[in-house]
């Protein structure tokens, strides 16, 4: 019987298995930590002015979302292939026959599904708490006994400080950054000797990725002294991903109006990165001896 070279059903089955496997690792425990961090910070910062309270609540929540999703993307993806190799589950899968591209796409999709659920849960917790605090402060303001004009102004200011529609595309960028990191981790893990190596490499990539834009600017403007420094900056700019475009959320929280087109371009860049790194992963993996 002839098997199609690519089957979305096989990919979906692999993605489902990967997702179930990751859920069994109890990775969702980080949500508990996230909730505790959120509630703790909200209680602690309640003594500040409402503008400061909302700004810090948003920074803490989105910063935690960023770190949890990035760490999850790196640590969980780093062990996908090594674990399959160690448990020898990869051999029957690839002998089915399942193409190696399907195997990699399935693994990545499973991981992306896990990240999506994690970010959705964190977003729900964060927005729920933001709404809860907003309602409390709105109630206090309404009962403050101030003249109606002042109450109206205070309520308007409170609402502007609390929820901002730009938070949603900002959160999407956090997800895309995690997706990019997951895809790049998958690529590194196709040739890495251990998952520890992959994780450590990716932590370095994460830090360098936030510096890439600075290195690129220095390289292109020829600010570096000497050919060695110039070559080094060039390599950093060409090899490492630029993670700065995914940090627009910082300025959303600070109240800067970010054009939607900028969000869309950063999101498109994230999708391109994820797809290209997946292709590299396939290029490195498809004829690798297992």
């Amino acid at each position, binding site marked *: 019987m002839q098997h199609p070279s690519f089957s979305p059903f096989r990919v979906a089955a692999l993605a489902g298995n990967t997702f179930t496997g990751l859920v069994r690792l109890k990775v969702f425990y980080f949500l508990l930590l996230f909730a505790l961090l959120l509630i703790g910070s909200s209680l602690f910062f309640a003594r500040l002015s409402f503008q400061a309270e909302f700004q*810090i609540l948003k920074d803490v929540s989105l910063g935690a979302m*960023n770190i949890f999703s990035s760490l999850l993307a790196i640590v969980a993806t780093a062990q996908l292939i090594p674990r399959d190799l160690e448990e020898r589950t990869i051999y029957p899968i690839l002998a089915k026959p399942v193409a190696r591209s399907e195997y990699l796409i399935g693994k990545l999709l499973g991981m992306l599904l896990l990240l999506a659920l994690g970010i959705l849960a964190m977003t729900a917790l964060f927005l729920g708490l933001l709404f809860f605090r907003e309602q409390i402060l709105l109630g206090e303001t309404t009962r403050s006994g101030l003249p109606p004009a002042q109450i109206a102004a205070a309520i308007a200011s409170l609402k502007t400080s609390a929820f901002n529609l730009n938070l949603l595309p900002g959160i999407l960028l956090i997800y895309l950054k995690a997706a990019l990191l997951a895809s790049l981790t998958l690529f590194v893990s196709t040739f890495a000797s251990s998952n520890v190596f992959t994780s450590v490499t990716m932590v370095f990539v*994460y830090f360098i990725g936030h510096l890439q*834009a600075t290195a690129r600017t220095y390289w292109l403007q020829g600010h570096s002294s000497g050919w060695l420094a110039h070559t080094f900056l060039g390599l950093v700019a060409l090899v490492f991903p630029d993670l700065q475009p995914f940090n627009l959320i*910082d300025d959303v929280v*600070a109240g*800067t109006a970010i054009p939607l087109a900028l969000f869309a371009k*950063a999101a498109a*860049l994230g999708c391109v990165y994820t797809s290209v790194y997946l292709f590299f992963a396939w290029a490195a993996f498809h*004829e690798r001896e297992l």
Partner: protein
Amino acid sequence: MIRPALIALLILIFGVLRLSIENALTEEDRVAYSYQVNLRLELREQIGQLGFIAALSGFRSLAADFAFIEAQTAWERTEWSRVLLSFQEATTLQPHSLLYWDMAAWHMAWNASAAASHDRTLPTDFLRRQAQRQYIELGKNFLERGISNNPRRPQLYESLARLYRDKLRDHATAAACYRKAASLPGSPEYDERFAAYELSYAPGRECEAWQILRSLYDRGPHERLPTLLKRLKFLEKKLNLPLQDRIPDTQM
């Protein structure tokens, strides 16, 4: 050996292809006033090792929040030097947060300056006044730097206007700041009125102030607020205007 070399070549080609896209995005980002903090050596000196690492790892807002909380704690202990350093750190890490600039200026120009004027550890009145002036100047400096980082947002111009009005008694500059705030998108409608009020206190600018206040008055009853009427009446008397140019007394 050929495969790894080929993959390395592909990575470099991808790097070259995305170079122009990333550059355009960074430039667009900068134009939208959301460009990342320029990581210079002076910044490293200002924000300390932890803040610098946070800035490198994409957590500069969070590091700025910690500096802000540190400033609040130092304020509760009235450690003004610590308040100043912490706010410098917070504003350097997150220059687009108006809250940090505004709070920094308020603590310096109002709280620290008032504390300095009563500081008995300074031996003379002259030194106390000098320290007070220096803190007010620091507050003004925070607002001016905040404005240069956020030139399209009216709030810091309003704060600077209040500082010129209440701390420096420079009503003409306060009026100019309110006028600038009024010209920006999203400014409250009272900025225009406040600019006129301030001008009415500026010596030698009474005629100009009267013309602006009168034009506001002529816009209709919604602008005829008690302060506006009071300032108009004051200027009419001061400028000794003929009766036909004055607003009716029944308005008061």
